[in-house]
């Protein structure tokens, strides 16, 4: 039998029937339904289990505040845990299952927890599970963890895609109910750029669920008309299914648009879009949330919020029960009785906690109890009846409860705002210190009657736009009939002898709050943390205020004195995938490709990530099965003849200006002022604290023009640092910096035949002989018949070497040309591994040594730090702690047993000492196999290293289970005199 509880009316499209599946059962609903309304229409009351006691749970609300009706939506990798049925738009083919039960929903084995509930009181776990000690990890905790959580992730990669975007407007209207639409009309008519967002798929808010009329139209008709007017305005953007979830500094609002969640498939479009909204003004029209009253066994399926009950009836034509009763402390609750009675639904009783006369006409046949108290309910899987304090039992399969409405102040509190209490409506309303540019209108500001909401929205819309310099339109506010909104605060039924729920999802009861008070957890934050109140997926939207009221009662303080916990973003939970947007997998970060990348790919190069760059690591040749074979060959061939390596990734900074030389003299620790034009110098750059920041070369191309290189890793931070020096420290200097990293493709050409190779491509009018172009020369030349190039005679490998740079557009062509020209020399390309081997052979420091913890002195370059001039870092580099007699120094290491392989990260211990931290004397920073020496070599830091040449120490590597004797040697393993590079 289908849709047994479907009645006439509502904003659903009965001509579009949708089939869906809940817990394996095929059901039908209509377009316009939510999963919750469709389940109710099909007579499903029980839809889940609570967190701790596994009590049966039914649909409680009709919105995003839902604590109970959480389902697992979709299947397989698309499985989406903890999804609120109340805001899940029904679609054809929807599949959902209930959560948090072992066995079936109806017969949950974990429901045994409920029997032991008195042992599982708030915070019980802090007091036990401590003995015997080993049992916590082995037994108690695994049991607790097995019970954790509600829904389940699939464990598979999220198959959907997400996107992000930026929106800009004058006015952002959050919430498109009566207040939001009124405000948007005011702002839109005045010509402001307006964005209206609503979390619902159908704008109108409670206009769509109440039977009140506006301007002699039904609420939903008025909303439709307002939306038509707004969507015709070019300056207004309407966004449904979009939740403003957080208010951030300076008027930035985070919003989530659910683009395809209401479709069976995303079809490769983004499932959700995360919007960053930059707005001059925000008008928060987020409405209000109804809250329950706590009484005995008030958690049974069928006990619902009164406003939700009439929402299901009025908007969706779905009947939550056949025999409905109302329990209220306010006039609004009565609307549920009158609305339902008007639809012919049986109202068994209206219980009003207030004394006096009924505020409205009494529905026929209903028992009316003024000053009434419900103390208990009955019904195992859903309410069947309830009991009043006088013992009277009243039947009902749906109990509509209203404890009044709490304005949705969350976004007003995301920064410093704290809500203030209004006794007349028994609710917190937005207080001071709202986020920049935010105003609040409608129910969110405490206006609870429709007529006041409409007027308030209209007026605030107008005042906001006139603030921004627009002329408000003269159109008057729409209006509605008057209604009564009386309320008298009433939070929980003291007469109840059994557990009365406050937080339905986390199973926090009135007793728990009292226990929390008894044990001294009285601050609201202690209460929250001790009982877990409000920490469930609904963030306590319906639970917090009643619970605070119970605490206030215990302490004898007023509710405003008791305060509220801090509202944190997000307003409703946001998928992590959406917050990440496109950044995942290979798209996590951009890829920078060097000019020779395509060519290297063709060569079958293996690439390595170096920051954002991909660099060729080595170039395997046919027959090479291990990377070491390739690297050994590249190194050997380069040292024997010539090799080519793409070094484009090194940072290049163009430094120009009348004071360029003096500027470099200040940013480098060593002298630069007198570097001749046409020469390159190696420079070390310190941080102001005297630690090595970076090293590189600077080449002087003209009196006022230098080209600096930095390491690949520090290119950006060095540029930033130099801009700081230029603008903030020495603003009187005429210096100009611009990065030219991208502008030039740069290749190292190294090896005894480097010159011969280059001479084949360099245009003949440029003499690059050793005499004309010696070591550390630089110059602007042309190659291959006029292509401009820069040539640097510098060497990282220790060989006769050059670096040649051409405009990037020629990079691909140049590497191919060098390979072709080098064929006669058996030229080899080499990658970063070989680069590393050769620099270790040569004793050059690199990233592992320049790790931000070492000084020039540690690196054996202490004497380069000039004491005769002011440079960054020179003063503080003189501190005692950086000049210890037994300080570290960088030296070379080789295994005493040459066949052993050194391990980077080993620590050094003097022979005979115990290997412990007190005897730790340093560490191995870089290692390589030297094909030239035929054994493993390493660079490392050890105390007084430079004085300990020849000493054998222990290199201990407990993490890999090894240790070996190593000999301290010079870091210059190859050509210590530097004859090759000058050759």
């Amino acid at each position: 039998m289908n849709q047994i509880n479907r009645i006439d009316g509502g904003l659903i499209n009965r001509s579009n029937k949708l089939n869906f599946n809940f817990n394996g059962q095929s059901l039908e609903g209509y377009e316009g339904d939510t999963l919750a309304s469709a389940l109710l229409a099909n007579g499903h009351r029980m839809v889940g289990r609570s967190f701790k006691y596994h009590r049966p749970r039914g649909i409680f609300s009709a919105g995003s505040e839902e604590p109970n009706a959480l389902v697992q939506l979709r299947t397989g990798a698309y499985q989406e845990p903890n999804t609120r049925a109340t805001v899940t738009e029904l679609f054809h083919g929807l599949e959902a299952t209930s959560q948090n039960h072992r066995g079936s929903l109806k017969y949950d084995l974990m429901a045994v927890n409920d029997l032991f509930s008195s042992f599982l009181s708030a915070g019980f776990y802090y007091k036990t599970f401590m003995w015997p000690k080993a049992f916590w990890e082995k037994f108690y905790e695994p049991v607790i963890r097995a019970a954790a959580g509600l829904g389940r992730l699939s464990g598979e990669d999220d198959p959907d895609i997400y996107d992000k975007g930026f929106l800009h407007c004058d006015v952002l209207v959050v919430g498109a109910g009566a207040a939001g639409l009124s405000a948007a009309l005011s702002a839109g008519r005045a010509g402001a750029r307006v964005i209206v967002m609503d979390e619902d798929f159908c704008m109108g808010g409670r206009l769509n669920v109440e039977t009140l009329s506006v301007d002699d139209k039904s609420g939903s008709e008025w909303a439709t008309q307002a939306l038509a007017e707004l969507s015709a305005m070019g300056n207004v953007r309407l966004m449904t299914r979009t939740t403003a979830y957080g208010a951030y500094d300076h008027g930035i609002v985070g919003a989530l648009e659910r683009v395809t969640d209401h479709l069976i498939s995303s079809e490769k479009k983004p499932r959700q879009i995360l919007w960053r909204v930059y707005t001059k003004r925000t008008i928060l029209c987020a409405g209000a949330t109804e809250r329950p009253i706590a009484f005995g066994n008030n958690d049974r399926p069928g006990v619902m919020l009164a406003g939700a009950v009439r929402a299901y009836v009025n908007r969706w034509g779905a009947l939550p029960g056949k025999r409905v009763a109302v329990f209220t402390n306010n006039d609004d609750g009565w609307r549920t009785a009158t609305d339902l009675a008007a639809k012919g639904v049986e109202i068994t009783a209206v219980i009003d906690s207030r004394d006096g006369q009924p505020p409205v006409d009494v529905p026929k046949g209903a028992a009316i109890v003024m000053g009434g108290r419900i103390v208990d309910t009955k019904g195992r899987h859903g309410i069947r009846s309830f009991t009043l304090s006088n013992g009277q039992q009243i039947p009902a399969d749906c109990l509509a409860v209203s404890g009044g409405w709490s304005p949705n102040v969350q976004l007003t509190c995301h920064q410093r705002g704290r809500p203030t209490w209004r006794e007349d409506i028994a609710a917190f309303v937005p207080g001071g210190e709202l986020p920049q540019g935010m105003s609040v209108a409608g129910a969110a500001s405490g206006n609870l009657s429709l007529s006041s909401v409409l007027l308030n929205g209209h007026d605030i819309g107008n005042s906001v736009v006139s603030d921004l310099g627009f002329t408000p339109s003269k159109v008057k506010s729409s209006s509605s009939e008057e209604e009564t909104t009386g309320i008298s605060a009433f939070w929980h039924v003291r007469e109840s002898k059994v557990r009365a729920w406050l937080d339905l999802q986390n199973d926090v009861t009135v007793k728990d709050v009292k226990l929390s008070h008894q044990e001294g957890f009285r601050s609201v934050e202690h209460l929250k943390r001790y009982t877990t109140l409000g920490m469930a997926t609904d963030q306590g939207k319906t639970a917090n205020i009643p619970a605070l009221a119970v605490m206030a009662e215990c302490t004898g303080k007023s509710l405003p004195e008791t305060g509220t916990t801090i509202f944190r973003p997000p307003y409703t939970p946001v998928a992590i995938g959406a917050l990440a947007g496109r950044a995942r997998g290979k798209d996590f970060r951009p890829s920078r490709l060097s000019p020779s990348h395509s060519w290297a790919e063709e060569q079958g190069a293996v690439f390595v990530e170096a920051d954002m760059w991909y660099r060729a690591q080595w170039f395997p040749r046919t027959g090479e099965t291990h990377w070491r074979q390739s690297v050994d060959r590249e190194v050997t061939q380069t040292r024997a003849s010539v090799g080519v390596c793409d070094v484009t990734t090194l940072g290049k900074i163009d430094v120009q200006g009348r004071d360029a030389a003096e500027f470099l003299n200040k940013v480098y620790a060593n002298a630069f002022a007198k570097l001749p034009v046409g020469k390159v110098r190696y420079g070390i750059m310190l941080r102001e604290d005297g630690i090595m920041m970076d090293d590189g070369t600077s080449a002087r191309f003209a009196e006022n023009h230098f080209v600096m290189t930095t390491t690949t890793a520090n290119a950006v931070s060095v540029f930033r640092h130099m801009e700081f020096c230029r603008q903030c420290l020495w603003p009187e200097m005429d210096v100009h910096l611009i990065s030219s990293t991208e502008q030039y493709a740069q290749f190292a050409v190294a090896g005894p035949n480097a010159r011969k190779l280059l001479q084949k491509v360099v245009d003949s009018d440029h003499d690059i002989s050793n005499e004309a172009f010696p070591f550390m020369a630089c110059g602007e030349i042309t190659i291959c018949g006029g292509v401009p190039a820069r040539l640097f005679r510098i060497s990282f490998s220790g060989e006769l070497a050059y670096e040649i740079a051409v405009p990037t557009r020629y990079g691909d062509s140049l590497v191919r040309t060098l390979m072709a020209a080098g064929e006669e020399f058996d030229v080899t390309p080499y990658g970063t591994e070989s680069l590393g081997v050769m620099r270790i052979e040569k004793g050059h420091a690199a990233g592992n040594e320049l790790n931000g913890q070492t000084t020039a002195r540690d690196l054996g370059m202490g004497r380069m730090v000039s004491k005769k001039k002011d440079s960054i870092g020179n003063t503080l580099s003189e501190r005692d702690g950086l000049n210890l007699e037994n300080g570290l120094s960088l030296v070379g290491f080789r295994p005493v047993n040459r066949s052993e392989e050194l391990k980077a990260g080993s620590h050094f211990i003097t022979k005979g000492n115990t290997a412990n931290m007190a005897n730790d004397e340093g560490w191995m920073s870089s290692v390589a196999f030297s094909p030239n020496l035929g054994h493993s070599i390493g660079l490392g830091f050890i105390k007084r290293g430079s004085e300990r040449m020849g000493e054998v120490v222990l290199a201990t590597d407990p993490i890999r289970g090894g240790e070996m004797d190593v000999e301290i040697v010079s870091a210059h393993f190859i050509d210590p005199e530097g004859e090759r590079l000058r050759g």
Partner: protein
Amino acid sequence: MAKFTLTANTPLGGFSHDFKGVSISEVNGRSIVSLATPLGGKEAVSKALAKTYKLEIPEPGKSTVSSLDNAVLMGMAQDQTFLVFDHTEDKPIDVVSKHLKDTAFLTDQSDSYVMLRVSGENSRSVLERICPIDLHPSVFPEGSVSRTIMEHLGTVIVHEKANTFLLMSARSSAKSFLEAVEVSALNTV
């Protein structure tokens, strides 16, 4: 004479594609020279520019267009202006220094950028997915220039004319940048 010759390539091989209501195409054939104004030398640069390109130095965030070489002068910073002009040969600096003599410090940036033109009625909707700058004509009118960040990549955006934007981003990450723009189009239209 060297027997080798070098051939130039472009960052994206001349990419061009039309999506619904928006076209994305690589722009080539332009050179970019950065002009750094020496301390106290603004007047001299202005004079030289006025004489040759008939242009003033634009404020940062603005651009001006000259008929000479279709040059666009973009204000990048207080002391930095980009001159973007039709020139496909090497050494664009020689062209500029002919006009400006030594009034400004020049740096060739022609090979530093990939340029994409995004045009069509949907161009703003597409760019709103990645561009943090407000591109509404009331805020970012034609001629506006901005350097910002899109999908982790530094990007210069120029509002060339109605519904037409020029994007400049680093050449080495041209493929990632194109993907960022393309995916925006695919996700939007």
